[in-house]
């Protein structure tokens, strides 16, 4: 459980970045943070894993304030994928890179080796490849894999799909969804509303350092007021469903994976036409 209690944060004393942010994220959730550039999403993520400490208010991990935890203790519990994979990658082979996290935590050994081998197989990496020579999508996957291999209960992802083509994007999101299915809490910053609609179960909208909306994905996506404040446009599937009154109820029942509701839409359209 991650809890923000009236959190204020800033980088310089005079520039407020977060201005009274509160929310709770229970274990096993899949939350997406959306909002304009500079809204404070990345800052919120950095508060969550203790890289930044709040000026006022509290950030609690399972009830313990991050100010009382060492960053290495937090690192064991919270995996963090940065906006730029290149700041994270530091070893000369894919295998070493995946082992690095265990080394940093002092957990080398046969278990670590086995976990690394498993991940290399799962992601289909070449274990001896030089990480810096991989293409952008594969580097992003490697950065993600180096977190997955540690199996942290919470995974924070800052724009995991930015700059990836559709295929790589779906690959990354597929892995993230699987992590969530086996119990990991997922917190993701994402600018792609289609991805948000397809994968997140809950959306938190931020604007100018404050939370302006928070709720189940579909409820948030069809609230034009909050989305407007964050200069966001809902994905087309929401527009279409709102245009069809009958669809509305069906989608509320199954807010996840809006894109998979094509059949329901067709049914609704023919129902409308039948009247």
């Amino acid at each position, binding site marked *: 459980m991650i809890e923000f209690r009236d959190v204020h944060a800033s*980088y310089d004393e005079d520039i407020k970045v977060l201005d009274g942010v509160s929310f709770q994220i229970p274990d096993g959730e899949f939350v997406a943070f959306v909002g304009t550039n500079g809204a404070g999403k990345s800052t919120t993520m950095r508060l969550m*894993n203790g890289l930044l400490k709040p000026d006022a208010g509290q950030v609690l991990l399972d009830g313990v304030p991050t100010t009382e935890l060492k*960053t290495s203790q937090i690192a064991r519990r919270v995996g963090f994928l940065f906006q730029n994979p290149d700041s994270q990658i*530091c070893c000369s082979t894919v295998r070493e890179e995946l082992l690095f996290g265990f080394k940093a935590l002092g957990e080398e050994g046969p278990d670590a080796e086995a976990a690394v081998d498993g991940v290399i197989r799962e992601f289909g990496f070449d274990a001896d490849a030089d990480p810096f020579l991989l293409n952008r999508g594969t580097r992003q996957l490697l950065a993600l894999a180096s977190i997955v291999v540690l199996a942290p209960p919470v995974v924070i992802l800052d724009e995991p799909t930015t700059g990836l083509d559709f295929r790589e994007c779906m690959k990354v999101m597929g892995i993230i969804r699987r992590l969530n299915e086996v119990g990991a809490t997922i917190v993701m910053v994402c600018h792609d509303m289609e991805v948000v609609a397809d994968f997140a179960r809950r959306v938190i909208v931020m604007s100018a350092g404050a939370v302006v909306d928070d709720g189940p994905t579909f409820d948030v996506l069809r609230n034009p007021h909050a989305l407007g404040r964050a200069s966001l446009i809902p994905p087309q599937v929401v527009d279409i469903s709102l245009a069809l009154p009958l669809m509305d109820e069906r989608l509320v029942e199954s807010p996840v994976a809006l894109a998979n509701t094509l059949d329901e839409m067709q049914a609704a359209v023919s129902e409308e036409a039948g009247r």
Partner: protein
Amino acid sequence: MNGFLEYVPGDSLLHRLNPMAKIAFAVLFAIACFCTSNLIFLAAMLVLGIALAASCKMMRPALGLMKAVLAFSVILAVLLLLTNPSGDVLVELPWGYVGTGSVLAALTTILRLEAAAIPLFLAFYVTKLTDLSNAAVKVLHVPYKYAFTFASTVHFIPVFMNDMAAIMEAQTARGVEFDQGGIVKKVRLMVPLCVPLLVSSVRKTNSAAIAAEVRGFDLRTRESGYKAYPLTVADVAVLVLAVALLAAAILLQVL
């Protein structure tokens, strides 16, 4: 937030001076500080430096700088204190003594470094780097290539510092304990980070070079610069002041 040595916009007198005059003043000022051991003169120079910082609303970075210089100069001063026995004996040491002279020397070192550093750093805070390099080309006839190399080197310092901060943060998130342990442990932890920093630096400089090249970098000459950098009365006054300060420092030392 403003980075280290990064230009802070403004329109104070210091901002408007000719870039070359500012640099010349800062350099002469620093030389003057090193030419004399007169405590009162050095204190006056320090006050002048602080006044200059205040005149262009740069007190905050100046204070930050002074703190950093203080830390460094205190180390030097302590070394001086322990290794430079002179004057009346104050404390006996196994290998000599700390005397009034040693204290004076230590104090002079701190004052001198503090005073000398402020205008040098201030010059970068109140001067756009492009202005600095363009003025060097126009006024001093420095070839554009060298001026550009200098400007981009200075420009990349904050960029690299940001990169380093991002990399350290990413490693901290993976459990590397930068916030624990002594300096030796920290340095050992930082060694692997040089790889990503180097890679990103080479990539960045490489793309910057290509970007400059495709925009006709090689065609640029002294005449290409549109803006002229004439020396105004204020500039000349500043230069005269600098020379006067230097002369005063030398005179005080000789007399």
